[in-house]
């Protein structure tokens, strides 16, 4: 029988209104490669009262929660949220998706949730005195507290990704440093938390509500202690989780935005000056969390154009963009690889030599797929985060024609 939690999930995500039209399947990046996979079938299974069979199936973990289906659903079914809640119910019955990376990513999140040992996670600052930050709680050689509006730079798991994915060339720590430089250039001296925990995005979307709640509790306490007015992140997943899921559970929580929004607004208002030079072509990957989940499409493009790049779009972009193939570190399969390779093909077809992303995970996944392609002798495409391109321009300084 369908439990109360599942009945609520069906009702609150409008899944009862599913018309079985199949548009979700037609738009689903996974269904293109995975025979028999369909978002609609998950709904159908529960409506038919086949809860146990639905919760046990692998398909539940193949969904990318990328929301491409929600863009076309005529009934407004919130399929992403539906899948998230069904995963939580499945996890209660001890079902879980196939883990990736030896379970290392989930393990460090659970260790952070345990909170037994304080982390030592500020090495990325690299003793660079030119980076203006306020570390919370105050360290020995702390400068004065930040004046006026206090902005928290939520670093996320970048220092950890540097260790685990450094071999792919992911410059995670450099991205964090350059994000601070950009904030400094905007006149913001951000607060960084010495014992910041993972925002919990991945565990939440894996259905692990209990560990998510512990991470949320720890971060909420730190944010309150540090008297933060607003939060800026470089990771769209942190931005989504802190902007939507934290306030939904806590009632009140400081507003959170992605750094690209802050920078694009400053550019528009003339508070950020970028040296505009003819820079050639780039193409842009809309991360599913920044794009469809948060509705931010223009900010990163405006910054790239502000730098003098010409943004050429892939066949699928904006609301119709394709995902990078894996989300929440669950289920990295041949289908994930096929989605990544399809996306990289689209990027190459634009003629741009650089695929710019705004999400560390898109970057990790594309670099991984490219490392595989490079072994097969295919042409290379550079993958880079937008913040490094903006930072390179800050180095050049001044304003050119």
């Amino acid at each position, binding site marked *: 029988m369908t439990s109360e939690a599942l009945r609520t999930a069906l009702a609150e995500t409008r899944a009862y209104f599913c018309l079985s039209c199949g548009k979700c399947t037609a738009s689903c990046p996974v269904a293109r490669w995975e025979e028999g996979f369909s978002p609609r079938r998950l709904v159908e299974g529960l409506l038919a009262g086949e809860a146990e069979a639905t919760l046990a199936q692998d398909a539940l973990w193949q969904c990318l929660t990328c929301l491409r289906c929600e863009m076309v659903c005529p009934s407004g079914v919130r399929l992403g949220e539906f899948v998230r809640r069904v995963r939580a119910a499945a996890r209660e019955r001890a079902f879980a998706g196939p*883990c990736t*990376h*030896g*379970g*290392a*990513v989930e*393990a*460090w999140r*659970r*260790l*952070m949730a*345990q909170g037994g*040992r*304080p*982390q*030592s*996670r500020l*090495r990325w600052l690299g003793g660079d005195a030119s980076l203006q930050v306020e570390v919370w709680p105050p360290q020995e050689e702390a400068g004065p507290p930040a004046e006026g509006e206090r902005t928290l730079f939520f670093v996320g798991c970048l*220092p*950890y990704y*540097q*260790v*685990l994915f450094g*071999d792919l060339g992911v410059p995670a720590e450099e991205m964090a440093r350059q994000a601070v430089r950009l904030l400094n250039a905007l006149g913001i001296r951000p607060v960084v938390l010495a014992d910041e925990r993972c925002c919990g995005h991945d565990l939440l979307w894996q259905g692990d509500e209990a560990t998510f709640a512990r991470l949320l509790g720890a971060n909420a306490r730190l944010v309150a202690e540090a008297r933060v007015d607003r939060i800026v992140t470089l990771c769209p997943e942190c931005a989504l989780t802190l902007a939507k899921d934290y306030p939904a559970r806590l009632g009140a929580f400081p507003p959170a935005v992605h750094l690209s929004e802050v920078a694009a607004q400053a550019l528009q208002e003339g508070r950020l000056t970028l040296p505009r030079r003819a820079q050639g072509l780039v193409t842009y990957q809309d991360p599913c969390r920044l794009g469809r989940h948060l509705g931010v499409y223009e900010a990163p493009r405006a910054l790239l154009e502000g730098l003098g790049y010409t943004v050429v779009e892939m066949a699928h972009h904006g609301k119709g963009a394709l995902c990078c193939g894996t989300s929440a570190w669950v289920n990295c399969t041949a289908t994930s690889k096929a989605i990544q390779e399809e996306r990289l093909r689209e990027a190459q077809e634009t003629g741009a030599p650089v695929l710019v992303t705004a999400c560390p995970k898109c970057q990790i996944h594309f670099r991984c797929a490219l490392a595989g392609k490079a072994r097969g002798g295919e042409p290379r495409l550079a993958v880079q985060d937008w913040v490094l391109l903006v930072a390179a321009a800050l180095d050049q300084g001044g304003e050119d024609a």
Partner: protein
Amino acid sequence: MENAEPRIVIFHCNWAGRHILDTLGRGRTRLPGRALPVQVSCLGRMHPGLVLKALEAGADGILLLGCPEEACRYGVGAEKVDQRYAEAQGLAALLGVPAGQVRLLRVAPGEAEEVLHALAEMAAASQAAQPQAEAVQGGGAQ
């Protein structure tokens, strides 16, 4: 605390690592701390995720015990373990695990003393980090 002895998980390979633990066991040697051996075929299999899971389960220290580089039965294991050990150490350091509490020891079958020495150091360091823990027999090997 029911058992305040430092818990050291020893991931050891089928070959030199296992041989040494066998030798110590046959000699009835008391290992420093509370050693929990886990056998893997080769340390090349030691994804950092396994190290983190051991920490999550409450290990105070992790010792990876394997063959000298030139003696890997599988050829590539020694190379693999270098990268994975570096990752495990890096992640453990970020998580606040003191340096030296995640260790790799490559030993020939006759080098049991080195293993005892490493375990003693790790057990002592764990106890120093937990001053309120009940005093237990620690430190020196034999």
